[in-house]
């Protein structure tokens, strides 16, 4: 297949492979490379939370049901209207962490919390790759020195990946 592709390139480009064409080729290659890097970089931004800082819904449910003596603090960092409809039991609503007000609320809440405390952040407003709240919340806690913070990996949204799977849910303020 590669040989066929090579032949096609030869047929397309060798007939008039002048200096001018080579110059155009170099420019095109540079532009293509820049485009590819830009797209890859944009994708990396959206999914830049390392897997070591993630926890899956299955694992969180197991952990919560294990009866551990050190349960995590659970913070919802998305929308209050979504929280009021359904949230993880014992979780607290702290505001959208993509906003300064939400981040302030988060910082205030953890002001007197041990830096070793297990904290789970979640949002579920949007698909994982598009959520604007989880990464700023994680960054804020890590910059404050918290060492045991996980972000709940919600692939599509809280309804699909938590509520509809029958995981524990509460309603209300």
């Amino acid at each position, binding site marked *: 297949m*590669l040989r066929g*592709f*090579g032949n096609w*390139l*030869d047929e397309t*480009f*060798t007939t008039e*492979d002048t200096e001018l064409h080579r110059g155009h*080729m170099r420019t095109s*290659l540079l532009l*293509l*490379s820049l*485009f*590819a890097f830009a*797209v*890859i970089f944009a*994708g990396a931004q959206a999914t830049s939370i390392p897997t070591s800082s993630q926890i899956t819904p299955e694992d969180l449910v197991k952990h919560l049901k294990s009866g551990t003596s050190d349960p995590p603090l659970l913070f919802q960092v998305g*929308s*209050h*209207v*979504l929280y*009021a*409809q*359904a949230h993880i039991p014992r979780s607290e609503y702290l*505001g*959208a962490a*993509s*906003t300064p007000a939400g981040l302030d609320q988060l910082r205030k809440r953890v002001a007197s919390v041990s830096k070793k405390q297990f904290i789970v952040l979640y949002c*579920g*407003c*949007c*698909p994982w*790759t*598009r959520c*604007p*709240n989880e990464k700023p919340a994680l960054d804020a806690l890590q910059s404050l020195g918290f060492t045991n913070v996980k972000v709940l990996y919600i692939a*599509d*949204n*809280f*309804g*699909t990946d938590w*509520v509809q799977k029958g995981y524990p849910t509460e*309603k209300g303020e």
Partner: protein
Amino acid sequence: MRPQVKWALALIIAVAAIVGFYSLRRHAPVSGTTGARAKAVAPDFTLPKLDGTQLSLSSYRGKVVLLDFWATWCVPCREEIPRFVEMQQKYGDRGLQIIGVSMDDSPDPVRPFYQQFRMNYPVVMGTAATGEAYGGVLGLPIAFLIDRDGRIVTRHMGATDPAVFETDVQKVLGTP
């Protein structure tokens, strides 16, 4: 053509193809028509607009309503707004009325957003009760297309291809 250039071109095209596929897949519409709720009567609500006056859904009976649950900080929601503004402009005369239901915590960030995006349709502040009435708004954006009789025709969850919205709207509006 030099073999190095040939291989570099092949590599770049392959990378671009993979990246393009991934990108399209990531932005693919996560939309569809609800089963049980399709053609159900759209739950009525009365909610405050950004200027404090009240808006009732039932007062739009006779129009085709596109009800968009969104938030100012929601990236896919923000991307859809300019398209909705265009659609309101294009199909308003034929009976389309878009209504935004903001799921922001307060109207404070919504007001400047409304001006900045030159929104030309009303926005109300949503509540948990409204979300629950519509089957639970537990992810954004979610849009419901409601026909002139007040029945839900389609429900689109997540970022949706604008062409899909336009096709649906044209279908429900009927022949001009």
